[in-house]
């Protein structure tokens, strides 16, 4: 099959690789119908996440049609149309049983690597470094889904791929970012970053009853989406002083909750932003917490700082004193996607939200290298790229051979 493989910093290639096969009884194989490039894939593209290896298949947002199931998978059958969550969760460990699926204790075969960096290992993820499992991703014609009896959700046929695909990551991620703000009537929520996760966080904040959502970015097309579809008040940090504007919009008190939907590769203005870029460029820092810093300082006393943005290492010059003295709550984590699949699918089916609004480009899978470059440079008003592995209709002839050979052994 064709798959989009990481080959180094700024270097992804479409390569011919073997088809995936069932490796464990709870596996399933899907023929990918749609897959997307996530903002967090750019962290891999830019080399910010360690333990990537040349040849790794990328992609953790994908959906498709089930073509084979393992012997222990009872809830899926061949032909089912499913969306797959990006964290891999076993469903039976301590964390899965408390619905904290992204903290699954069993799904990361390389847990010892993550333990070295973070003390304890979270769940394995699709296509997101060997430290997080080294699982092959979904930017490919076929993908193997471990613990397929826990993750994938069947989706009704009247909804298009673009409407349900983002249940795999960014919609639940934005939603959990907003949910973590414990929104009460009258609340003002400020969102840093109007990429897809930021846009879903804005929309979700309104769904959860926020009075006013303020969106911060620098790209006019993203701010237009935030103001248009999501109905946010927008601030372009190129044009206005963000902290001052936030105070103005909240009667001087500050937003009740701040969402950092930017993560480790933030851009910004001022002394700290320059410091971050310099330190980063000199390989002396793992992350650039420019947005997070601003969010902490802007947040009102006793408020919540919610961080769906991805950070990986050790953050520098974080105003911890502000957290303590303003009694802030920080909430973060990889999204427990499995927890949100059903309720958010219901919201889509009821027409409360149509996630396809974030899509700016739909391209065939073989255009992935160009798509990454475009997304990275934010060229051509790129916000969200959906890749189509194509309906070439190529039968997985070799699959049946594989299975037969395996049975013989």
């Amino acid at each position, binding site marked *: *099959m064709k*798959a989009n*493989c*990481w*080959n180094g910093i700024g270097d992804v*290639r479409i*390569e011919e*690789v*073997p*088809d*995936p*096969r069932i*490796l*464990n*009884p*709870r596996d399933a194989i899907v023929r990918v119908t749609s897959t997307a490039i996530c903002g967090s894939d750019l962290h891999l593209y830019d080399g910010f996440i*360690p*333990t990537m*290896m*040349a*040849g*790794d*298949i990328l992609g953790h947002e994908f959906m498709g049609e089930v073509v084979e199931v393992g012997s*222990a998978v009872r809830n899926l059958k061949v032909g089912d149309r499913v969306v797959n969550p990006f964290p*891999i969760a*076993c*469903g*039976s*460990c*301590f964390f899965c*049983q408390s619905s904290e699926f992204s903290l699954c*204790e*069993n*799904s*990361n*075969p390389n*847990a*010892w*690597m993550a333990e*070295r*960096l973070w003390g304890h290992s979270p769940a*394995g993820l699709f296509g997101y470094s*060997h*430290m997080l*499992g*080294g*699982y*092959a991703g979904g930017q*490919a014609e076929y993908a*193997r889904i*471990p*613990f397929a009896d826990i993750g994938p959700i069947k989706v009704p046929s009247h909804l298009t791929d673009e409407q349900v695909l983002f249940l795999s990551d960014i919609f639940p991620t934005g939603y959990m970012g907003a949910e973590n703000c414990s929104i009460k009537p009258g609340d003002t929520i400020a969102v840093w970053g109007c990429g897809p996760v930021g846009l879903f966080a804005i929309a979700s904040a309104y769904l959860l009853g926020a009075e006013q959502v303020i969106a911060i970015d620098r790209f006019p097309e993203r701010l237009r989406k935030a103001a248009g579809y999501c109905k946010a008040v927008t601030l372009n940090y190129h044009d206005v002083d963000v902290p001052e504007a936030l105070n103005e919009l909240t009667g001087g008190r500050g937003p009740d909750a701040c969402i950092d939907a930017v993560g480790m590769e933030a851009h910004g203005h001022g002394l700290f932003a320059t410091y971050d870029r310099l330190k980063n460029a000199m390989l002396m820092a793992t992350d650039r917490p420019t947005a997070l810093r601003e969010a902490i300082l802007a947040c009102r006393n006793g408020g919540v700082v919610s961080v769906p943005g991805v950070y990986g290492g050790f953050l520098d010059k974080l105003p911890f004193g502000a957290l303590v003295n303003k009694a802030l709550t920080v909430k973060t984590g990889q999204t427990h996607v499995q927890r949100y699949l059903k309720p958010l699918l219901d919201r889509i089916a009821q027409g409360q939200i149509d996630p396809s609004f974030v899509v700016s480009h739909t391209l065939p899978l073989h255009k992935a290298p160009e798509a990454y470059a475009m997304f990275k440079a934010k060229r051509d008003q790129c916000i969200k790229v959906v890749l189509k592995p194509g309906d070439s209709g190529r039968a997985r002839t070799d699959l049946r051979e594989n299975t037969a050979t395996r049975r013989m052994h």
Partner: protein
Amino acid sequence: MATEISADSNESTRPAAASGGNPRSTRSSLQPTGVPDWSERPPGRSLSASYLHRREQVLDERIGDALGWLSLGLGLAALLAPRAICRATGLAQRPTLLRAVGVRELTSGIALLTQKRRTTWLWARVLGDAMDLTLLGAAALHPDTRRRGRALGSLAVVAPIAAIDLAASLQQSSRDNQRLAVTGGHEAFVEQVLVVNKSPRDCYDFWRDLTNLPRFIPALQSVAVQDDRTSHWVLQLPGGVKLEWDCDITADDVGERIVWHSREGAPVKHAGAIRFRPAPGGRGCTVRLIMRYEPPLGRASVGVAKLLGHDLNAESRENLRRFKQLIETGEVPTTRGQPSGRRSWLGRLTAEGRKSRAGRILRETAS
């Protein structure tokens, strides 16, 4: 802990099978060595010598600290005012030599104040003392009476300090030797603990069926159960090396623990215990694995093996983790056999190289 392992014959433990005869007769030579029970061990310190070491250290520490500070003071003085010191002690004016002495003193001073294991550095001081005494002795033979007097005065100060250094070093060395004697010296330890989301009884039952072990310990080729007590183990090592031995279960408390040791003639003498305790709040079971073994090439070989990517402690942790995965989910998650793009030779080595030792080292250094 080690007491528990080898105390099978004299405690409340009972042999797994009556047919096994007198447990003493089949015991390996791993004898109780006076290592305290692991329950009284402070958490977070592996049962290596270092923790036993700490108990008896207060006095040594004070002497060591004092000598360390003395070294620092002398070192600084020699480095900054070599000429004045030469004058005061009656030595010939050799500032460079004195500065070298200063550096030597600073090094041992800093080492004594910061390093946990001081024995080497105490002996370094003794060596330095010998050098100083020689220099001063030479100066004491000088024809100039004033210098001779000063040198003799200095000797009177340095000699007692040298005596203290020597006494402290001897004492420290003998402590080290005692410690080695206490821990057996040639034995190595494994200790791992993991919470499993299953009842102690489920965990015990799964483990007690010894034929399950190869399902989560990849190096084990097979375990053949001969009777309730005895089993035959086959371990496949990289490079086609095959190790085989017999194990005896020496204590078997249903739902609680299993204690075993290798029989006479095993290539690697070892004893182990696995204990299953209810985790608090109904959170399943705390599984604790403890093992003592005699590395075939001595204890130093454990460090060398670690450098080569074979760390039995780390491997035991992964084995325990696979046990947890298997019993909780019914399978061991894996990516082996999944597709990937072309790997570079380095990538090939590291990605497919769980079997490859070099790959493991590379991955460990990479992470």
